[in-house]
């Protein structure tokens, strides 16, 4: 999901207004970043679903039935299944989702109408035998009312490599839209709607967890064959390719099939406007409310850029379809979410072109097709692996496309997405560690800032310090190598180590797991006329007093700058020295040790110094101590702020109109 909070920054930025030449939009990347790394063409089919869903839009219910074929892909036999019934997160205020004291992020409110999923049938078909598993299912843990994580004891062990078939039937009552699922009038966003088997890890342990307010999902790949039955006149958008549609008894029925995915979501509304376009061989469908033509075009523009760009960076998009769903404005919580081959976007219909939030949310959710969809990491245990990497990928793509105004290019203000990420990363950098489970975060604000922004800022810092080409390749290798393979944090760190180096990998590990931080600061500066040593010297048996005036070199000046590195991260950094005559020189410090003294000698006095003048280390805790003016020299001051602020203050004082 996308975290958005540029509005405040925009309002503040308007006070002074930033200027400069308009950023030029760039083309998508075309050269593959890691062409030599092979990718799996298909996922191992572990959990495959053949389902039928019938929507009653008046009651907001979905009747579901079908079969699940599940394979034990681990190395150990299993005696139980774990099944996620995530709609029960909205059943009552005793669910793990509802009782989490988390604010400041997604799904913060109690739904206006509750939601449930009730299993009606769960039968293990074992050859000629049929075992009713519903009788033994354990919906709750002792002392816990949550019903989102059900344990299903099996009548016999399932051996490694063996498959079983389950017959299921269930009844969904959709909640009023909350946390990216539910209804709003006749609009229905149907997600987490079927009983879904948790992922069995290779070692035989189940990665099962209740639906947490900040948590997302994790599942095995499989083939989904889903028939959706809605009233005629409803437009359906869903995961996968349409293989059959028909109208029957006042109902619209369509069947969708998609392999190599690990979830299935769909939407139905009788007011959707549909636009289709084939981009890079992918049939792209945009579903939006009436009156959103401009935003639909902007979303298609985004996908026209993103498909080739992400394809070059992280490997070709492997599916034949992609559906974008723009929910109605009255259901904003349905927006900004990713499912395999289906993403939901958002933003108001009147959004100015220079405010790139619709492009950003579209490209972010599309990016999840890679960092969530194809690299199906455990979103609950390691949310930074999908949201953090995806936020970096989003900022990288937006910068490649929109330049310096990638976040905002409006009213003369150009703000990069990376600037907003860096700011949020600093504000919460010391709160908690990034590499922890979604349910462990104390606040939604910290979760958003750390998982999304700080992770993106760490990766951006690595790219700026060690080289963007290396970072492009490293993530390209990671995305290709771990396509369909459920990577872990260690896989990411090892890839960074192999492609960028041990120092980068260590910085990444420290930043992710140990709240690693860094602050470079200039703590002392000095500049004076050059002179030799003065004082009393005993030379050749004689005592000589040398005055300072005699040793002075009128045409030379000496000085120094003392830089300190605080914190646990260590990056090489440049220090720029600026002389009174305007000349500039740079010195590189490898970041080893805690202090570094940069000597100065020149024909003009040293006036000022800057550490990290190119803003490579975006993780820097305090950018305001990265520079200093030598005492006794005039400061550059803030004349531009005075001029702009005076202009706008006078304008306001006079009133906007006569």
């Amino acid at each position, binding site marked *: 999901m996308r975290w958005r909070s540029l509005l405040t920054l925009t309002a503040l930025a308007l006070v002074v207004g930033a200027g400069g030449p308009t950023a030029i939009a760039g083309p998508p990347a075309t050269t593959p970043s890691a062409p030599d790394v092979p990718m799996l063409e298909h996922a191992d089919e572990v959990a495959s679903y053949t389902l039928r869903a019938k929507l009653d839009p008046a009651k907001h219910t979905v009747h579901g039935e079908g079969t699940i074929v599940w394979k034990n892909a681990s190395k150990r036999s299993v005696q139980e299944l774990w099944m996620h019934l995530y709609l029960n997160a909205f059943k009552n205020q005793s669910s793990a989702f509802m009782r989490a004291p988390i604010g400041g992020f997604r799904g913060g409110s109690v739904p206006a109408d509750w939601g449930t999923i009730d299993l009606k049938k769960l039968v293990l078909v074992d050859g000629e035998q049929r075992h009713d598993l519903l009788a033994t299912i354990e919906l709750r843990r002792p002392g816990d009312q949550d019903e989102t994580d059900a344990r299903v004891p099996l009548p016999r062990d399932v051996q490694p490599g063996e498959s079983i078939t389950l017959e299921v039937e269930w009844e969904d009552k959709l909640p009023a839209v909350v946390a990216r699922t539910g209804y709003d009038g006749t609009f229905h966003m149907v997600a987490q709607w079927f009983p879904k088997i948790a992922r069995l890890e290779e070692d035989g342990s189940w990665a099962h967890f209740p639906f947490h307010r900040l948590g997302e999902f994790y599942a095995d790949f499989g083939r989904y064959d889903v028939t959706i039955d809605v009233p005629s006149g409803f437009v359906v958008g869903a995961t996968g390719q349409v293989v059959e549609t028909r109208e029957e008894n006042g109902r619209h029925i369509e069947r969708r099939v998609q392999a190599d995915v690990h979830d299935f979501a769909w939407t139905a509304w009788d007011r959707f406007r549909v636009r289709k376009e084939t981009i890079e061989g992918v049939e792209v469908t945009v579903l939006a409310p009436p009156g959103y033509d401009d935003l639909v075009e902007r979303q298609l523009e985004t996908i026209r850029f993103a498909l080739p760009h992400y394809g070059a960076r992280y490997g070709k998009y492997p599916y034949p379809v992609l559906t974008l769903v723009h929910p109605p404005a009255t259901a904003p919580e349905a927006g900004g979410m990713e499912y395999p081959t289906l993403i939901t976007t958002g933003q108001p219909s009147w959004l100015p072109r220079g405010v790139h939030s619709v492009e950003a949310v579209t490209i972010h959710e599309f990016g999840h097709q890679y960092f969530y969809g194809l690299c199906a990491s455990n979103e609950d245990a390691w949310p930074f692996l999908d949201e953090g990497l995806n936020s970096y990928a989003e900022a990288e793509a937006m910068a490649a496309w929109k330049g310096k105004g990638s976040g905002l290019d409006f009213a003369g203000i150009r703000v990069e997405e990376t600037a907003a990420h860096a700011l949020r990363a600093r504000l919460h950098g010391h709160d908690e560690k990034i590499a922890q489970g979604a349910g462990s975060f104390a606040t939604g604000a910290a979760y958003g800032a750390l998982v999304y922004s700080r992770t993106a800022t760490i990766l951006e810092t690595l790219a700026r310090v060690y080289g963007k080409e290396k970072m492009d390749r490293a993530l390209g290798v990671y995305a290709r190598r771990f396509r369909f393979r459920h990577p872990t944090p260690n896989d990411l760190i090892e890839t960074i180590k192999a492609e960028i180096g041990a120092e980068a990998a260590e910085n990444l590990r420290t930043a992710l797991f140990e709240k690693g931080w860094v602050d470079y600061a200039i703590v002392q500066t000095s500049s004076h006329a050059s002179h030799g040593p003065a004082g009393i010297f005993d030379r050749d048996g004689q005592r000589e007093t040398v005055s300072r005036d005699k040793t002075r070199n009128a045409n030379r000046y000496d000085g120094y700058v003392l830089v300190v590195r605080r914190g646990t991260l260590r990056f090489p950094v440049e220090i720029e020295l600026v002389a009174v005559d305007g000349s500039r020189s740079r010195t590189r410090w490898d970041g080893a040790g805690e202090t570094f003294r940069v000597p100065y000698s020149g024909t003009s006095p040293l006036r*000022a110094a800057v550490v990290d003048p190119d803003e490579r280390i975006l993780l820097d805790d305090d950018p*305001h101590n990265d520079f200093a003016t030598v005492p006794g020299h005039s400061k550059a*001051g803030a004349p531009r702020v005075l001029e702009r602020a005076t202009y706008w203050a006078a304008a306001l004082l*006079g009133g*906007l*109109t006569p």
Partner: protein
Amino acid sequence: MTTLTDDTATTPDAEAAPDAAATPDAEARSDAAASPDAEAKSDAEAKPATPALLDTVLKGPDEAADDEPPHALEPRAIRARRRPRAVLLLWAWELAGAFVIATPVYAWARRVWGTHPDGDAVLFEPGGHALLSWLAGGDSALAIVTSTSFVAFATFRLLGVIVTGTVVAMLATGRGERDLPVRASAALRTGIEAFFPLGGVGAVASIVQAVVVGIGFFASSSVEAWATPRFGDARAFTARVVALVLFLAVAAITGIVADLARVAVARDIAIGSRSKSTLRHIADGIGTGIRAARACLGRATLAWSWRSAASLALLWIGAAASDLVGARGGAVLFALFLFHQLVLLVRAGLRVSWLANALRLVLRTER
């Protein structure tokens, strides 16, 4: 010619009477004229004409005018271009206020970024890294700067009422045969005396505008709520904007009426109606403003609207110039400052021009 004395009341009726005798002198004559009939007397019957003529002969027209008290101008003589000092006064006032308002944020920027070798230029670099870290980085100075600037802004807006009164006095009255500008001290005295009446008119207008805009927000959101299920949220939003714009137009017209009332009040005081109570001034001014609006709302709206459009366009041009200059400093920054001041000066001219227009409309209505 006939002049006014400070303490002699000229009633609105008396002001309106000289339509038949359409000379500035006749319009202004009132020290002896306590009634509309007296107003209708010819110039020849005006007793103070002799000393004024003598002054003119002895001292020359301008010097003679120095000794004369101000007189009310006839509508066609009320022009912003004839009172450049009024424009300069308004511009200088706004510039002075702007400096005070801008000082806290300038001081803050100077403290944080002043020691950077490039100074605050980094704040204007595309990408916005320094700008965001400064404005949104959690520096507690932001709250102090904001509140200090707000207090300064509110103070200057309030004291600006005096400037408005002064400007209207400069526009509405003149000296000597050539209708030379009144003395600054006299105009300023009018501005000060008009402070409470003008403030009262402004308060009433602000309350009405707030109510109109409040109703507008409520009504427009109701329109949107009604339209959303019927036409979709995009079209419903358009309907909301249209509804809100209608109410904003009403609020703008309220502002126009308020300006008509303001100029009526300030002129009334400038030409000598100082015996009225503040409330009487407010009531009379609002009454005059409403009558003027009823008589010539179209002309007033047109006159205000084109000046508003020009004013906003100028602001936009000023912003575009900022954008063009970007982070550059030195001579380019100084040139930008001069250009911005030119923009503000022209805007002040538009404001004075509008007030002059409002004065003319009020006077014509009263006849």
